[in-house]
């Protein structure tokens, strides 16, 4: 235990703590730009400098350990002046186009300039010239807005284990980009968008599909359907100032209908469908001897990751399309046929917590008869923009139910939004498929929570199944390397690209608050606890679509509409 004084207040701390973590714990705010919770400090931005009595210079609180007897001033004139100067210097080489920027009002640099009272352009100089990289189907890089904090580089390397981007060049020519300064589209980028959620400015953003969607909504010749991913209803509210984790499903459905969508569907329905197919695939592989472990296929960033880094494991990946693509495929076949709509006239939109879904929707394998399963993908953030654009406020809309037939869901489908959820949902249905009985307790506790790697062994009808769950692809790497090295006790492995699952996806409201992620997770668990139907195979509409249209899981029609294949990719890794 060490004792120190901060702003003339006595505070106790553990030795080994950084000054910043102690300040945070005691509710004292110093601004940061490059700090990332849980990762090794880089000390790049110097925003968090504080004055420590007896030390000659200001110290970066994020990287400086506390010492006994330390006397710290967090907002001394010198510290505040230093911070302000840093912001002024950053602004001197920043395009002054906040009004046109997607992060206007939600930008760390803008907020700091306001907080520190920057009212003048004190430093004038030549601005750096950069090209915007819009080559990726998911992301846009605008290096002119980059302040070189390096968060995107660290997330890509340390959390995702991808390292698609790094610093290039030196000094005033330094910039962030992929190898050989090429476009993201030919790099090893997996489109996950974690870089977007940590970017303090508008230097990284999603490739927006808003214009396409608005055009479709305004086209009387188009029948526009929309689906929303399981996690979106518990995150969208944050964009409207609602407490993190609040389930806004009813108001969101109303908003989408008022925007002019002809049908509002729930991707949790097709998550149930995925469980029917993937659960059957698991049972088949167990009975027929592999290849095991079966790897989940819902998360498109993860799929590209396997294709690039572990091509020899592609055979392990489930052939199931993701829920997004499944819903798209049955909307343009089963639903179109039932309603007598020409599928070529149908425009299928999805609202996803994800930027990689934009890439997925463009995969040529994921279409039938020349028609893409999904035509446009909006992130949660874009959906909020669309709703605001129409003057709608989620706070004041009455709730409405989703449309049939793809509006009914089990809470197992809803769990797809959180790490471990696909596994739980699959275990519930696999249990039924193998034994004809329901699981006594549908919750597998050790697969819940935000840990990066979770494992469990369950027994179904005398059969012992090894289950593993990873989120954040650096964690997936660890398990894959074990499998590559010969680990044999796993039957099923769920991987979600983003740490914690879709609730923390690259398309979600930008939030630096880890408590928000936790609240989103708890909300999905609460929905499951209170649900009337907690298993995918008891979803009435699922049973109906198999009776009327698909036949049986893994049957001929399923195979054609609901399953896909993967490719190996030769990119610079």
């Amino acid at each position, binding site marked *: 235990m060490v004792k120190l004084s901060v702003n003339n207040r006595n505070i106790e701390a553990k030795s080994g703590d950084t000054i910043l973590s102690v300040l945070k714990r005691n509710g004292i705010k110093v601004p940061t730009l490059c700090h990332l919770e849980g990762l090794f400090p880089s000390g790049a931005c110097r925003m968090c400098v504080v004055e420590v009595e007896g030390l000659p210079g200001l110290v970066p609180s994020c990287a400086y350990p506390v010492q006994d007897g330390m006397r710290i001033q967090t907002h001394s004139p010198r510290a505040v002046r230093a911070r302000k100067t840093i912001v002024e210097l950053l602004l001197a080489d920043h395009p002054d186009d906040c009004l046109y920027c997607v992060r206007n009002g939600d930008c760390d640099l803008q907020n700091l300039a306001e907080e520190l009272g920057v009212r003048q352009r004190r430093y004038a100089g030549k601005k750096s010239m950069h090209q915007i990289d819009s080559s990726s189907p998911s992301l846009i890089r605008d290096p002119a807005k980059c302040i070189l904090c390096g968060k995107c580089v660290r997330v890509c*390397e340390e959390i995702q284990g*991808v*390292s*698609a*981007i*790094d*610093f*290039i*060049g*030196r000094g005033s020519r330094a910039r962030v*980009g*992929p*190898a*050989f*300064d090429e476009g993201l589209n030919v*790099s*090893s980028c997996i489109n996950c968008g974690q870089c977007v959620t940590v970017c303090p400015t508008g230097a990284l953003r999603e490739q927006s599909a808003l214009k396409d969607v608005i055009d479709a909504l305004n086209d009387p010749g188009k029948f526009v359907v929309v689906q929303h991913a399981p996690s979106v209803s518990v995150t969208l509210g944050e964009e409207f100032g609602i407490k993190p984790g609040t389930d806004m499903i009813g108001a969101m459905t109303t908003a989408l209908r008022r925007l002019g969508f002809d049908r509002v569907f729930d991707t949790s329905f097709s998550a149930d469908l995925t469980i029917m197919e993937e659960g059957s695939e698991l049972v088949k592989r167990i009975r027929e001897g592999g290849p095991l472990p079966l790897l989940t296929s819902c998360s498109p960033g993860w799929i590209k990751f396997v294709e690039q880094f572990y091509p020899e494991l592609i055979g392990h990946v489930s052939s199931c399309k993701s829920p997004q693509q499944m819903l798209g495929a049955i909307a343009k076949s089963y639903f179109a046929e039932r309603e007598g709509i020409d599928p070529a006239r149908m425009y299928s939109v999805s609202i996803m917590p994800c930027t990689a879904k934009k890439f997925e929707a463009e995969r040529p394998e994921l279409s039938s008869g020349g028609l893409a399963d999904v035509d446009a993908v909006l992130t949660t953030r874009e959906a909020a923009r669309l709703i605001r654009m129409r003057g709608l406020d989620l706070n004041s809309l009455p709730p409405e139910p989703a449309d049939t037939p793809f509006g009914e869901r089990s809470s197992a489908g809803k769990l797809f939004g959180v790490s471990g959820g696909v596994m739980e949902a699959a275990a519930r249905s696999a249990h039924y498929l193998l034994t004809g009985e329901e699981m006594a307790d549908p919750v597998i506790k050790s697969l819940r929570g935000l840990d990066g790697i979770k494992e469990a062994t369950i027994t179904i009808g005398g059969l012992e199944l090894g289950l593993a769950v990873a989120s954040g692809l650096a964690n997936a790497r660890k398990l894959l390397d074990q499998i590559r090295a010969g680990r044999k006790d796993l039957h099923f492995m769920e991987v979600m690209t983003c740490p914690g699952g879709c609730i923390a996806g690259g398309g979600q409201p930008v939030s630096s608050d880890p408590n928000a992620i936790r609240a989103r997770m708890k909300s999905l668990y609460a929905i499951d606890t209170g649900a009337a139907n907690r298993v995918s195979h008891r979803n009435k509409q699922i049973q109906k679509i198999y009776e009327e249209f698909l036949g049986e899981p893994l049957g001929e029609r399923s195979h054609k509409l609901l399953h896909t294949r993967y490719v190996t990719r030769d990119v*610079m*890794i």
Partner: protein
Amino acid sequence: MNPSVQTILDKYVGEGRDSLIPLLQEVQDREGYLSRDALKLIGRHLNLPASKIYGVATFYNQFRFEAVGRYHIQVCRGTACHVKGSAKVLETLTRELKIRPGQTTRDGLFSIEVVACIGACGLAPVIAVNGEFHAGVTPEKIKEILRTYRKQGAEAIHG
């Protein structure tokens, strides 16, 4: 597979990321530049992502990513040359050849490299073309020098 890069890598068996710079230097010495292929092989050998290797390599002026031209022009930007106007010399070269330092003209004839000091301060501002020094160059002289090499190059190619 690139055999000449592979022979270099074979000398670095079991080495980690701290061998990156010596490896890059050796490969560039052998090949004249760092090709995409070479970077890929080095990355696989040291278990480093290509973006990281490119980041390190672009931090230093000595590495290039395009093959050098038939005539490789080194422009001295040392103190003496700077005082004597080497900035103008470099500007003329980049404008005339339409390439930046580190690049090679499309016809493969010329490439430019900026060097800190080539130890010929008495001749400032100085450039070296394939090791041959040209002293006291001015924008006008540069144009003339380029003309000479272009002619030489054309003769060499068309006989």
